[in-house]
C-alpha cells in the first residue's frame, strides 16, 4: 500500500512539475469539441444526442493520449524496470498507473463537460452530476484497458498506432452504454431510466479492472 501511494504521489508531483498531461488532454478535448461543432450543422449541433456523442469522442481521445503519456513517463531512463525490481507486486504497479490515467481522464472529462455546456447550450442543472457519474464510470473502464494495452503498444514494435486499434473495438460496449446514458441524462431524464446502461458500464469496469490487475504482470515482464 505504501508503494502504491508512493507511485501515485510521484506521478502527481511529476505532473505539477510540468508534466503537462492535463494541459494536453484539456486542449485535445477542446479541439475535438470545436471540430464537432463545425462538422455538424448548427441545427443538429444543439441537441443532447450530439453533445453526448461529442463528450465521449473527447473522452476516448483524451484517454488514449493520457494512458500513453502515463506509461511513457516510466519509460525514460528505464524507470519501469526499477519498479519491476522493487518489492512491489506487478498488480500494485498496475493499480498505481491506473489511478494516474484515471485521474487525468476525469480531469479531461470535467473540462470537456464544462466546454460542452457552453458549446451545445446545455442547461446547468443537477443532471450534470448524473452526467459526471456516467463519464467517470466510462473513464474507469477505459483507463483500465488503456493502462494494460498502452504498455503493450509502448513495447511492441509498430506501437503507437496499435493502441487505438486495440482499444476502440474493445471499448465499444462501454461506449454504447455511456453515450446512451449521457444522452438520456442530458435530455432531462433521471439516471434511473438508464439503469441498464449504467449496469453495463459497471460490469465493464469490474471486468476490465480485474482483468488488468491479473494480466498486467504478463505484459510488463521481460522475456
Amino acid at each position: 500500500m505504501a508503494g502504491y501511494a508512493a507511485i501515485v504521489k510521484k506521478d502527481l508531483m511529476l505532473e505539477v512539475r510540468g508534466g503537462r498531461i492535463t494541459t494536453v488532454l484539456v486542449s485535445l478535448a477542446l479541439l475535438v469539441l470545436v471540430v464537432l461543432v463545425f462538422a455538424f450543422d448548427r441545427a443538429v449541433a444543439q441537441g443532447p444526442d450530439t453533445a453526448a456523442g461529442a463528450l465521449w469522442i473527447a473522452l476516448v481521445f483524451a484517454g488514449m493520449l493520457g494512458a500513453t503519456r502515463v506509461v511513457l513517463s516510466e519509460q525514460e531512463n528505464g524507470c519501469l524496470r526499477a519498479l519491476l525490481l522493487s518489492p512491489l507486486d506487478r498488480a500494485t504497479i498496475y493499480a498505481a498507473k491506473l489511478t494516474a490515467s484515471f485521474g487525468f481522464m476525469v480531469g479531461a472529462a470535467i473540462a470537456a463537460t464544462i466546454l460542452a455546456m457552453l458549446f451545445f447550450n446545455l442547461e446547468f442543472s443537477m443532471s450534470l452530476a448524473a452526467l459526471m457519474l456516467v463519464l467517470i464510470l466510462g473513464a474507469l473502464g477505459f483507463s483500465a484497458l488503456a493502462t494494460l494495452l498502452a504498455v503493450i503498444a509502448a513495447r511492441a514494435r509498430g506501437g503507437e498506432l496499435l493502441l487505438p486499434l486495440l482499444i476502440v473495438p474493445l471499448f465499444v460496449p462501454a461506449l454504447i452504454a455511456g453515450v446512451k446514458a449521457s444522452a438520456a441524462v442530458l435530455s432531462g431524464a433521471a439516471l434511473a431510466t438508464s439503469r441498464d446502461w449504467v449496469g453495463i458500464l459497471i460490469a465493464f469496469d469490474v471486468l476490465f479492472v480485474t482483468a488488468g490487475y491479473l494480466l498486467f504482470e504478463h505484459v510488463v515482464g521481460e522475456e
Partner: protein
Amino acid sequence: MAAPVIETHALGKTFGLTPVLRETDFRLAPGHAAVIIGGNGSGKSTLLSILCGLVSPSEGSALVFGEDTRRFSPRYRRRIGMLSHQSFLYPNLTARENLEFYARLYGVSEPRKAADAWLERIGLGESADDRVRTFSRGMEQRLTAARAMIHNPALLLLDEPFAALDSDGIARVKAMIREAADEGCTLVATAHAQLEIEGISFELYEIVRGQVVEYQEKDEARRGGRLRSLLSPRS
C-alpha cells in the same frame, strides 16, 4: 559452508537468434565479491539482468538466495540492489525526491532522512533540490549509485559502477561499496578491467564467448595479486 547467494546451472540466454550467454555455472558465497570482466556486448549486463530477475534465462536456471529468478517473490527482490547502465531516475524530480521515492518503494523507515543522508555521502547535498534533468552525467551516476544502495541490499549488482565518474565520485562510490561489503553484502560487479577497492578481494571472472569462467592471467606480474586475493581470509 553457507549456501551460495548466487548459483547458476547451465545458464544460457539467447535473444532471438543471437546467443549472449551459454553454459554458465557461476557460484558466489555470501559476503564474497566477484568482478566479471568483458568487452562491450559480451553479456555482462545480461547476466546481471538475469540475476536480478528482469530477464528470464533461455536455458538452465539461476538461483539467487536459493530462489529461482523466474519466480522471484517481493521478499527476495527487496534484498537486491541493482546499479544498471540505465539510471532509473526521473529527470523531472529533484535528487532528493528521486531517492525519497525509491526509499518509499523499498519500505525504508524515515525515507526523507535516508535520502538526505545518502545525498551527503555522494557529495550532492547542495544539489539536493535540483532536478535530475539538469545534472551532469557524473552527478547522475553518483545518484544512481545511491539509489541502488538506499535500501541496504544483501546483494549488490553493479554494472560498470564507475562509468562517467570523476576521481572524487569514484572515491565516494568506492567508499559506499566498501561499507556495504563490510556489512556482509555480496557483490557482483562488471568492468572492462580489474577493480581495485581497498579492503575487498574480488574473485575475478571473465566472459569468454558467452561463458562465465575464472579469469586466466596472461600477465606474470598480476598473477601475484590474484594469488593474494585467493589467499585472503573470507567470511
